[in-house]
């Protein structure tokens, strides 16, 4: 995984570049949480080992020292319970941030998320709402095997009532997490475990990033690579390789799966006439299918090739490195498919 910084296009990034400050994705997440905890006394964090331990990934280190154990709360290993508490607390005036250590554990909170949080506002005819943020992780290749490696963001993206955020850079992660905590709806926020050490420019000044605005991470003219979270670095790596072959790839990051900036995806595909969607969720019935369908529908008359999809292989994530590494899209695989689409295979 590349650790080179990615230059975001958004306006706020200019300040970051000027000040030259570069931090990791984990630091960006921690800053966003600390700023919102300082700004709003209704915000609290609850999860397993979130206080002194700062989570196994050390993303939250230092927060309990500043905000104390009444706001940074170590919970029992009861994912459904802490999410349920979050729903009830959010309905009655708090702004919970619920920490679900591994995305695989979303399976344990599905009733609270899907049948409760997502439906409260609608079922109550708009009277009640659930301003809760669920932070969790995705991403394989950490040698963690089948129950600690899945990318299940498609599951929650399927559910009306939830918003889904899937950042790929420290800058985006910080701005989008602050927006998530301030949002009046339940938001599921996915962090790629392998990107916590990824560095990028983040300005000192406060900023937020609105949901539903895709970001072109690299401009190009021959082919569009739509990529999410962990796959943005893969797409950028592929774009570098393709450039050497004389193929100009545009990398587009939707940043939020709902709300979704369909227009930017469609416009990019219209411009380049080819598109590959790359995402680390299972390929079957996944995010790639939804995004590819939107592009195929919206850019049909401009396309020179079918829209292609690259997701995780449809197998439980295996442990052995020689097996696991086959299951996720790589720079090489993206380059090969792009070459084929561009008639250069």
């Amino acid at each position, binding site marked *: 995984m590349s650790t080179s910084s990615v230059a975001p296009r958004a306006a706020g990034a200019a300040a970051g570049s000027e000040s030259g400050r570069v931090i990791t994705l984990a630091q960006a997440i921690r800053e966003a949480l600390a700023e919102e905890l300082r700004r709003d006394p209704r915000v609290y964090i609850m999860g397993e080992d979130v206080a002194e331990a700062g989570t196994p990934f050390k993303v939250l280190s230092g927060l309990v020292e500043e905000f104390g154990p009444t706001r940074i709360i170590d919970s029992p290993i009861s994912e459904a319970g802490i999410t349920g508490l979050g729903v009830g607390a959010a309905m009655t005036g708090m702004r919970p941030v619920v920490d679900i250590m591994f995305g695989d554990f979303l399976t344990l909170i599905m009733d609270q998320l899907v049948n*409760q949080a997502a439906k409260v506002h609608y079922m109550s005819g708009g009277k009640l709402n659930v301003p809760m943020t669920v932070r969790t992780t995705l991403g394989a290749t950490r040698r963690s095997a089948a129950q600690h490696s899945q990318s299940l963001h498609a599951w929650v993206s399927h559910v009306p009532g939830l918003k889904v955020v899937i950042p790929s850079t420290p800058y985006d992660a910080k701005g989008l997490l602050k927006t998530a905590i301030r949002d009046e709806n339940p938001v599921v926020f996915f962090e790629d475990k392998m990107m916590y050490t990824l560095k990028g420019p983040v300005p000192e000044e406060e900023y937020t990033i609105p949901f539903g605005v895709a970001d072109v991470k690299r401009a190009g003219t021959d082919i569009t690579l739509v990529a999410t979270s962990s796959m943005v670095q893969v797409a950028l790596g592929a774009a570098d390789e393709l450039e050497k072959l004389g193929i100009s790839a545009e990398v587009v990051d939707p940043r939020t799966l709902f709300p979704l900036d369909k227009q930017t995806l469609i416009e990019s595909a219209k411009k380049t006439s080819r598109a590959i969607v790359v995402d680390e969720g299972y390929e079957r019935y996944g995010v790639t299918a939804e995004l590819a369908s939107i592009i195929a529908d919206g850019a049909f008359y401009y396309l020179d090739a079918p829209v292609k999809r690259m997701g995780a292989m449809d197998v439980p994530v295996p442990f052995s490195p020689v097996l696991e590494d086959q299951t996720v899209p790589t720079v090489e695989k993206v380059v090969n498919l792009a070459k084929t689409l561009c008639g250069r295979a």
Partner: protein
Amino acid sequence: MAQVNASQPAQHAGTSPGERERSLHMYRQMVMIRQFEEQVNQLYMSARMPGLAHLYSGEEAVAVGVCAALRRDDYITSTHRGHGHCLAKGASVDRMFAELLGKAPGYCRGKGGSMHIADQDTGNLGANAIVGGSAGIATGAAFSSKMRGSDQVAVCFFGDGAMGQGLLYEVMNMASLWKLPVIYVCENNLYNEYTHYSETTAGELAARAKGFGITTAEVDGQDAATVYETAQRLVDAARRGEGPAFLLCNTYRYYGHHVGDIQRGYYRSKEEEEHWKTDRDPIKLLGQRLVAEGVATEAELERIGTEVEAEVEAGVAFALEAEYPDPSEVDQHVYV
């Protein structure tokens, strides 16, 4: 661990003007719930109500006794069998009926229906169609109350069926650990849908809450005065910061699991149903007590019945005449 002897009659009724007023209010509320549910059944039988409903008839003393111990700004969460809880917490019959018929003036603009009535003005965080599904919400409301420095208490109503759900045990653990002001009210109406609870339940129901160090009480759920007095004691303790409680109310469901469950012979006998209706009816029992203690005369109770009947009939008429929501509302309120 507190234990209430259900056979010991409460000695409170009618000794002061405040108590008299409360007793009569409780009686009126119970009659209202009974008549409301009879009307719901009629609406179903005459095919004027979409979908199904789960009737609360027979269990009125639980909702009314518990809610009499609550303030308006205290919270409740309810169940699929929730009409009684909503009314007891202060919902009005006309908007309740409107919701059941899917009409625009309903509590949820027709989006929730029988199983999802919520009313923030009376602290009702919503009925819930997932068995045990609101245990997290009620406990979270109690957690929020404590974090905000409020003294609001949350009551989580659920049935014996919810004792099979894991979420309940996760949140009872946290409620006890953090001394949250939440009362878990288990209405044991003997049946998990169509199955007697003894076939699904190992050990004692109340022992499960005791295992978490939660104050536990078991009462005759047909005796409104005892339910009220016990609930008041538990609610007061929770409000003082002494932590959660578990109140097991032994009660009975007169109708089937839902209005369409009319052939019940395969899981319970007519004799059993008759016994509860004849000997253990909570409205009858409270009425007899009020008359015996000189709190009210037969004529006064009859007048309450007549007044409630008029209110319930007016509520049904209101709902039947009310407009349906505009079709364009279908995609409103998905997000704030």
